[in-house]
């Protein structure tokens, strides 16, 4: 359920980037002050572990392709929230870079969805209070399943919101939610089992390891609910503020999709604002079959459309298609030309 660049609008993408950058800075600062040096290689290696573990994921039937073996939860339980968050952020960064899973702009969203929720929110609000210092395997099992399920649900819901707010998809809110949430419920339950299994196994096989990690984790216990809530409140205000700022300067689809989210589930009638203008514009252009054959030079028309929909005029015209074909052909020729020259030289 990695968010993809192609589904994002710049407003949503950059806002979440800002949000995750803030959390990353916060986590680094927290750790730097109190970290035990030995955490640095441990975090890196465990990040690699999450990767390797996610790749083995394929052997469990029914969990889909891009594995996310409750990575966030396992790490939060074992390393504490700050370190776990940083590890998740780097795992997702590597995924974005090496596998193009998601993408670089969507990385903000993905770190938020798969890192912030499990490591900070769910760990501090559900797992920690529930399990505490208890070593009871049953309790760990139940708490793990709950935590993973909740974290994944939050993540999945965020994917829905981020997609809809970006306004590139036509999916109605209700359909989208119904598509995402149940799948992730199933995944969450399997992952919860695995998470608990691993925690319990490690606890029984090498209790000393857990303890040695825990020793270098003085802050695990110190994260207070109040602090977490405060942080979230602040982040929410910042996010909201940024979103509305973007919305006012570049309303591309935003209000329209908010209407969609809150209003009717079916294809909405867009009656006001940019959407209405757009609709009128589309109607005008769509029913002029010979529109594309008009001579060039309609400078003024392009000018007045450009602030919000600069390309819609070109979007469907025959000349646009011809132009695109010529441009693409040229690019291919350039590419092949460079290859040929290279080969001659080499």
């Amino acid at each position, binding site marked *: 359920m990695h968010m*993809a*660049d*192609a*589904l994002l*609008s*710049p407003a949503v993408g950059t806002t979440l980037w800002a949000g995750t950058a803030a959390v*990353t*800075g916060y*986590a*680094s600062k927290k*750790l730097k002050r109190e970290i035990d*040096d*030995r955490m*640095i290689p*441990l975090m*890196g*290696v465990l*990040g*690699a*572990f999450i*990767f*390797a573990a996610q*790749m*083995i994921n394929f052997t469990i039937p029914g969990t889909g392709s891009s594995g996310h073996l409750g990575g966030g939860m396992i790490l939060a339980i074992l390393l504490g929230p700050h370190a776990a968050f*940083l590890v998740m952020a780097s795992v997702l960064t*590597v995924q974005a*870079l090496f*596998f*193009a899973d998601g*993408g*670089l*702009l969507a990385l903000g969203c993905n770190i938020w969805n798969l890192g912030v929720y499990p490591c900070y929110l769910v760990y501090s609000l559900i797992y920690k209070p529930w399990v505490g210092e208890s070593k009871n395997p049953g309790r760990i099992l139940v708490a793990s399943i709950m935590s993973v399920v909740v974290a994944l649900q939050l993540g999945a819901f965020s994917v829905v919101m981020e997609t809809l707010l970006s306004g590139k*998809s036509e999916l109605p809110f209700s359909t989208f939610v119904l598509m995402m949430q149940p799948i992730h419920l199933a995944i969450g339950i399997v992952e919860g089992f*695995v998470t608990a*299994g691993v925690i319990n*196994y*490690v606890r029984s096989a*090498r209790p000393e*390891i857990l303890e040695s990690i825990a020793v270098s984790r003085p802050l695990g216990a110190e994260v207070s609910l109040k602090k977490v809530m405060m942080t979230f409140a602040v982040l929410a205000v910042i996010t909201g503020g940024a979103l509305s700022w973007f919305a006012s300067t570049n309303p591309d689809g935003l209000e329209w999709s908010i209407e969609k989210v809150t209003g009717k589930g079916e*294809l909405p009638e867009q009656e006001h604002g940019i959407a209405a203008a757009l609709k009128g514009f*589309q109607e005008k*252009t769509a029913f002029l079959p010979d*529109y594309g054959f008009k*001579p*060039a*030079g309609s400078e003024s028309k392009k000018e007045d459309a*450009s602030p*919000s929909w600069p*390309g819609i005029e070109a*979007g*469907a015209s025959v000349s*646009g*298609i*011809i*132009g695109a074909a*010529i441009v693409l052909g040229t*690019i291919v020729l*350039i*590419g092949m030309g*460079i290859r040929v020259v290279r080969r001659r030289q080499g």
Partner: protein
Amino acid sequence: MTFDEKYFDIGRLDRLSYRDTCVHHLDPRAKVIATMLFLITVISFPKYEVVALAPFFLFPVLLMTLGEIPVRFIVKKVIAVSPFAIFIGIFNPFLDIRPVAVILGVPISGGWLSFLSIILKFALTVSAALLLIATTSFPGVCHALRRLGFPALFVSQLLFLYRYLFVLMEEAMRIIRAREMRSFGSRGTGVKVFVRLIGILFLRAVDRAERIYYAMLSRGFQGDIPDLKRSRIAFRDLGFMAMTIAFLAVFRFFPITERIGRVAQELFR
């Protein structure tokens, strides 16, 4: 994708990044910034835009050819990760059926346009991200991030992750093989063994981290990963940046593609 394929894939991408071409020699910071600007520009086109996206393929094509990156490899990887975007986008043609244009008598609905737009943006953004790694190398990107103000702790952690990614993936691969060798049919591959396997892998990762920490200590580690500053922004990096920005701005704000089409149409009339 199977485990081996995934593993070899990143190995291949990584090897590509150690090539020796003019693109590889550019400063990582310049490439990171250029790529981010490229992504934002592409994403910022409205949802029905298709034609104006065409010129942007020049960016990946140039990186690919000048950087001597095999086209088929990148194309294959782009296709391999496409399902989610396609899955979300494919609903558009069914949900948004208002015709927005008629081309040569065939009405085109908004949904098809926005779907096509998603696909093009997808191809552009994914290939740009892959090419960033293929021409810059992961450590290069990390150093760039560090220099661009990312927290040192986060970056050094990222470098460790990268280094041990290969080691642990190989380890995982060999463990899987060992299990396969002694499992017949589906016996021995159930969730219970799976959990153990993950558990073992985890314990080994922790042990390894411990040994690495010792190795670091024995070489004078005192809490900071030292860094030799090895790259400086050179004239050609600035040139690259300037050209990229100019290119992005021109094709973002002027409908050049369409105008080319019109001129061509005039000529052939």
